[in-house]
């Protein structure tokens, strides 16, 4: 009954739709409780540190032809610029890491959402912590960005809800006891308490799609990368928090 009322109220208020003004954007961090924020802030108690340790090991370990560290030095700022569009294809950080593995290291790619890929992604993204997200809208990215925006605004699933109805129109309100955030991907990969572990943005996006009873796109699918690109552009200028902790 309450759920029905909530869905109804979302449907009614969604008519006054609009993207969040730049100045009103807030990271999911600001919607969290004091304890969860403390967990993220203290590097020694943020459980993502185990993945960062794994990531550092993988970074320095020779895989196939070379180690990541054989070519790369600092990766500061890199994660803030992904997803990138390369010869018409949008590629996110996880996919870039795997592309480097197959093309340069001549090693087997990691499975999406595997512990190894999450660890390496977190290790690379951690080096951009505190830097503003720098995904731009230009001729190369625009087609993907618009496809992502279209997906964000499209109603889907048995509940017939679009992302925008919660995250643009009703952020800050309660949904089943939790506060609806604005959906800015500022801390990925995140340590999510519900998962009891580290997870990627695609895992989170698939969660929401299952939540509205839609069939989720596969991990690393072009649709999810386009959506990721749109969300990163939507969060442009906001600071990366990787590794974030979220409830």
């Amino acid at each position, binding site marked *: 009954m309450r759920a029905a009322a909530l869905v109804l109220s979302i449907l009614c208020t969604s008519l006054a739709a609009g993207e969040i003004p730049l100045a009103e954007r807030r990271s999911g961090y600001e919607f969290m409780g004091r304890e969860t924020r403390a967990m993220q802030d*203290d590097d020694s108690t943020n*459980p993502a540190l185990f993945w960062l*340790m794994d990531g550092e090991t993988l970074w320095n370990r020779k895989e196939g032809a070379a180690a990541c560290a054989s070519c790369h030095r600092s990766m500061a700022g890199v994660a803030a610029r992904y997803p990138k569009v390369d010869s018409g294809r949008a590629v996110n950080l996880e996919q870039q890491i795997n592309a480097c593995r197959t093309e340069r290291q001549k090693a087997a790619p990691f499975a999406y959402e595997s512990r190894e890929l999450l660890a390496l992604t977190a290790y690379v993204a951690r080096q951009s912590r505190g830097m503003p997200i720098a995904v731009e809208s230009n001729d190369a990215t625009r087609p993907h960005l618009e496809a992502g925006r279209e997906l964000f605004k499209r109603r889907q699933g048995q509940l017939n809800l679009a992302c925008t109805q919660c995250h643009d129109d009703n952020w800050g309100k309660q949904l089943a006891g939790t506060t609806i955030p604005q959906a800015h991907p500022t801390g990925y990969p995140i340590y999510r*308490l519900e998962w009891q572990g580290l997870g990627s943005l695609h895992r989170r996006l698939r969660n929401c799609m299952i939540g509205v009873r839609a069939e989720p796109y596969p991990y690393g699918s072009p649709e999810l990368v386009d959506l990721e690109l749109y969300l990163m552009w939507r969060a442009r200028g906001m600071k990366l928090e990787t590794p974030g902790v979220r409830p």
Partner: protein
Amino acid sequence: MARVAITAPSRAKKGEVIEIKTLAAHVMENGFRRTQEGTLIPRDIITQFACTYNGVEVFRAELYPAMAANPLIAFTTVAAESGTLEFKWTGDNGYSATQSVTLTVT
């Protein structure tokens, strides 16, 4: 692969209360969950944690299935003398992890 992380001061004044934070990488599988096929996932948790300070136990905790993965245990003790703090976690399926840090008391 047992991995742990300790945050503790390396020096302290005599009589000072010091805070120690420990984190252990562990799934803490509670033993009540089932797979999609319906088979029970066996319990796999840390059951005990203890800290000794120069051989004297200063903190002990028993852990149960309701505790989260990668449990954080934070506690305080009084810096009495220079020496070693030893930490030991034990659990199901022969899980065991140890770590030690040195503390200089002035």
